[in-house]
């Protein structure tokens, strides 16, 4: 996946999937998002993002873990792929390199 665009919300979701390390499914991702960013995205928005990420090959999914709370329906667990990880690395490098060359604001004052 060369130069695939990664939206801001998608990037966040991807980071959280990586962080949850095997326990990432829609509701857990949503909870972390809510906790860390104070944003409460709709479940639909989240699924759209996850669906796109999967299409881009940054995450992969498998089904499992049905609970009674879910009425016996299985969850879909997401894991980050190597491509996803690389994309995050690139994004981080780009941001940090740009950040480091940011001119100081002090003379203005």
């Amino acid at each position: 996946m060369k130069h695939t665009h990664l939206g801001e919300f998608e990037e966040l979701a991807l980071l959280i999937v990586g962080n949850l390390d095997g326990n990432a499914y829609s509701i857990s991702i949503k909870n972390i998002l809510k906790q860390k960013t104070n944003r409460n995205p709709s479940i639909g928005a989240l699924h759209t993002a996850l669906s796109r990420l999967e299409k881009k090959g940054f995450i992969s999914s498998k089904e499992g873990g049905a609970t009674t709370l879910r009425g016996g329906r299985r969850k879909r667990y997401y894991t980050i792929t190597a491509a996803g990880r690389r994309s995050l690395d690139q994004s981080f490098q780009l941001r940090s390199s740009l950040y480091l060359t940011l001119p100081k604001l002090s003379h203005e004052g």
Partner: protein
Amino acid sequence: MKDNQLHNDTPPQWPLRLLMRFCPEAHHEMIEGDLLELYRERNNKNRTLNNIRYIYDALDLTWRSLSFEKIKTKPFNIAMLKNYLVVSMRHFLKNKSASLISIFSLVISLTFSLVIFNYVEIEKSYDSYIPDVEDKYRMIFDIYGSSGRNVHDAESPAPFAPFFAANIPAIKSYIRIFDQRNIILSNPGLQSTKIAFLGWTDPDILNFMGIEVISGSGKIEDQNSIMLSKSIAIRLFGSVSNAQGKTVRYNDVKNLEVQGIYEDFPFNSTVRLEAIGAIDVLQELIPTYYENGENWGGYSFHTYYKMNPNSDYRTIIESFKAKYEDRFDIDPENLPDEYFVFDLINVADIHLHSDMGSEMTAPVSITKLNLLNYLAIIIAIIGWINFINIQSARVPERIKEIGVRISLGANALNLRLMFLVEYLLICVFSSVIAIGIVYWSTTGFLYELLKIELPIFQLGLLATITLLIGTFSASFYPAIVASRLIKGDVIKTIKNRKTGRLRNFMISLQFAISLFLVVFTLTINQQVEYMHSLDPGFDTNSILVIDGPTTQSNDDLNKANQFRDELNGLASVDLATFSTLAPGKNKGWEGNLPSRDGDNSSFQKVSLVNIFPEFFKIMDIEVTAGRIPQGPQQSESLPRVILNETAVLGFNWTPEEAIGKKVGYSNDAVVVAVVEDIKTVGFQDQLVPMMFIHDHVYFQQTTNDYFLAKVNSTSILESMGHLEETYSNIFPDNDFVFNFSNELFQSQYQKEVDFNRLVMTFSLLSILLSLVGLAGITTYHVILKRKEIGIRKVLGSSINNILILFIKKYFYLILISGSIGLPIAYYISNDWLNNFAYRIDVGFLLLTAPLALMIFLVCLIVSFTSLNAALVNPVNVLKEE
């Protein structure tokens, strides 16, 4: 899915339904779960607010889901498959009888169809081994007379091949084979063997046929040489290397040096020469006939041509005609009384399409092969129908299992896959068993049963396709039926009219086929019996036929007389003779003979027989006109002949007129007597015109000689030992083979008897499979209706009423089958009977008796399977309601 007790609150259903309509199916489960989980996490707060949020989420998801990717779900993984296999095995073992019925019917039907397909495949492969077979043709030789075609033969006169090859540029090369049967080759003083086919041929035959030469040059030109096939060389000399260069003695008249050894002709070859000699040897053996290869009239040579590639055989046939007319000054506008027509048949077509006389290997009709193919396909289909019917009828048994699987998260695809795995397992298992049986019984009972010969087993294209398609379709259909249950509509599935209708249709089809086969079997059987019952015109029981020897020495006639006298000397023999006709075995040799009656000369095909006067006494044939000559034969003067009534009629004479007339046999012959007709072969054909030749008895150079004896008591059997000893003293190297004429007549009907056996096997098979299938279905049908039976009994039904209820349905089905199957049976049976000159009619009884039998059997099976259910105490079935 119903909610469970932990969570009483349920969100409104409609948004979910809307969502499910638009969202790709692969996401359904996850999204449903997510929505429910979210809803329940908020459960303890305000309910209305919760519902609103739920509705918002659902609607939000609905429109967003339109852009969701269709994710590729992996429909299975190893663990799941393993589970399916385990469950299949358990299920299989849990209900052994039903599983065995399924497997049994599949195995039986597959085995039989595989055998047939294998057979057909082999028959169709005949001669395909010959290199460039598409350019190789065999000449067909026809002789036409004023009454039409009199001769249609695979053999043609020798000089035509070199003549045509020299004058028609499209012909690249030619090969002629004079095939001689049942001759004796010996390794002088050590070993002798009877061989079925010896060919006197043009030099390059092995190359033409693509037969590998093991040693020697592979070309036969030298008149003192012979080439042997590998197996004959081994039989005579022990090994191939021993045989090369040795001397073999041919029929005790000629020594030949073994010039080469070749690989045996393949089993699927119409030409199977075991030894090959040069064609010019015939000048030495039958000089008056061969005429140095210049006999343009006598037809005894299988003539093969290799054409230039891409030449059109039709233009070659036209060239044949043109060159022939040219050579013999024939005016096509004014054809002579007797003229030749030449035609071609591709070598690869000979075995299946030949309708000519004198084929080296008896051809198989393509119609018979196609019929066999149809029968095999029918049997295969019946097997699949059984499988589909039984398995789909058993699906409701598994409602609970399906329910549990769904609640544990199985989706439609999973369940379909589960059933597919299970059915595939049974189908594959059955296929393997069937292939095994076919393979291991290559020459065993199955082939005996079907009366077909199979040298090898090979899985042909049609067989493979049948196996694969059949197996898969038989697995898919019940799997789809099973997965309908996933929609939760169990009852609807069971009562599903469409499925029921389809099943009924399939049952009717099975029984229609069975009925057709039974009627056809009975027709064949009755026809054979009818032919047996007809009177051939003489007492078949009292005629003893002893096969003549295969010899070619100068004192053959003396030896034959010696053995005849031996027979005459027995007390149990009234009179003995020898002739070229064995009553019940053959009808003589054929010739196209003209009458010589002034200008009114007409040709007809006549069966010619060499006899002595005693022949008519032995056979008890009455003389209609004239007198049978007595006394010695006069081979020098005009030969005297005797015609039968059919022959006289064919020449447009009355019996009285015929006496003294001449016919164009040899250099003309004179008719001295007319005798009544007798039937010497089976009643498949009309009476044939016959001519008995009195003055030409050559007891040599033919293998169609027989000793005939009229016996008067069974004590003849006690003399057999003595006779055999005398026989082998007079004719060393020959086997003593004897039959009574009635036995020979029976073997005339062997073809029909074999065919009958074949069709009977299939009809029994078809009935067996259909009944087994029916038993399988009704067993389950009855289980499903246990409660209905209980209620009916409570309301006062008797056991009889209940049985009738079940039987009624199938009774109607059989009637429907009859209305389909019987007209077809009538049509096909009649069509088959039209092949016979003496035939029965397909009567009312022949059609209705099988129907009655079928109804009886079906009633028996249905009452048997439903009796248990009908006897059950209604309390036991209904107590849980």
